[in-house]
């Protein structure tokens, strides 16, 4: 296969940031969107980290600010990201132009401590569905992928694999901090593969989510 970009410097940059144990952090508050308990992600201003000083902090760029999320919510779509036209077995319905970041109410009734930066006044009523945790993880991974120091050839980048393990419920109102770092790097015959590892923590330091995102930079 013809290689249309030079893998060597990309591999070197990935390896350099991994060797330096760089980590990238994002922090989100999961806010309720309406009285029904649907939730969305919101940025959290920089402040105290649940990681304290034990982790070296890297550049956190790469996730440009988004406009405020507004609108309703009410969906039964498993992903609850608005109406995507599905009328299949999941009963995906029309949510009528709502915020795509909203996620549905699962009503587990779990409680979680979301003091500090979290919305403790709003917390502890409902666990958010896995789809929201996935979006939260994606935002953290993008912090790595968009780091200008890596200068990745995005036209060749594909998401090759993903794993997530849920360690604790994530409730509406919780403040979730995610740390991401570069894991395994491997050059294959058809692509350069590298893992972005993520760990997400609640405000009180409990790990709630652990993930590995495998990215492939295709040759050619």
């Amino acid at each position, binding site marked *: 296969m013809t290689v249309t970009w030079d893998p060597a410097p990309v591999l070197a940059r990935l390896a350099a940031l991994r060797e330096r144990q760089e980590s990238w952090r994002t922090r989100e508050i999961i806010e309720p969107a309406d009285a029904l308990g649907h939730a969305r992600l919101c940025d959290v201003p920089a402040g105290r980290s649940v990681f304290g000083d034990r982790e070296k902090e890297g550049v956190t760029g790469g996730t440009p600010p988004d406009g405020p999320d507004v609108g309703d919510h009410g969906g039964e779509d498993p992903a609850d990201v*608005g109406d995507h036209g599905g009328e*299949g077995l999941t009963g995906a319905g029309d949510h009528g132009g709502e915020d795509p970041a909203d996620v549905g109410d699962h009503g587990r009734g779990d409680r979680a401590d979301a003091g500090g930066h979290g919305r403790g006044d709003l917390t502890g009523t409902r666990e958010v569905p896995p789809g929201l945790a996935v979006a939260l993880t994606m935002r953290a991974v993008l912090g790595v992928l968009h780091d200008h120091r890596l200068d990745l050839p995005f036209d060749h980048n594909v998401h090759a694999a993903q794993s997530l393990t849920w360690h604790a419920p994530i409730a509406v109102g919780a403040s979730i901090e995610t740390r991401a770092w570069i894991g395994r790097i491997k050059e294959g015959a058809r692509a350069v593969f590298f893992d972005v590892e993520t760990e997400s923590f609640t405000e009180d330091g409990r790990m709630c989510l652990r993930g590995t995102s495998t990215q492939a930079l295709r040759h050619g």
Partner: protein
Amino acid sequence: MGELPVPVGEVPVPAPLVWEPAADVPRDYARVSRDHSAVHLDEAVASRVGLPGVILHGMYVYGYVATYLGRHADGHGGRLASFECRFQAPMLPGVPIRVRFERGDTRESVRVEARQSDRPVLSGVAVLTPALPSAGSSDAS
């Protein structure tokens, strides 16, 4: 130190899942995930890199399936513990995605296979943990 709780029962294998992501899903999910990569938003760029059109975010499909699995487990008193998958091919909006589930190698694992236009697009394994007995219960059946 007390004994560890013993799981009771198991979460049954979910029914197949079929849905058709609408054309505006990539745009909407770009807002959610903040992944504004051109292959998800720009037909011209997608075409230039050999794709038939803009493609879905893999994490959209992953999250959709994970939420379906989570709801299924929740409905049986259990929960989604983990989900790992490989993305095997680009997935397109406007084309139904059909997902089949089978029992995996353990009583808690479920194999996940998704196809679009009869082409495999995602395969993986989820772990659905069953309910734990209530406090004080000694029934390990």
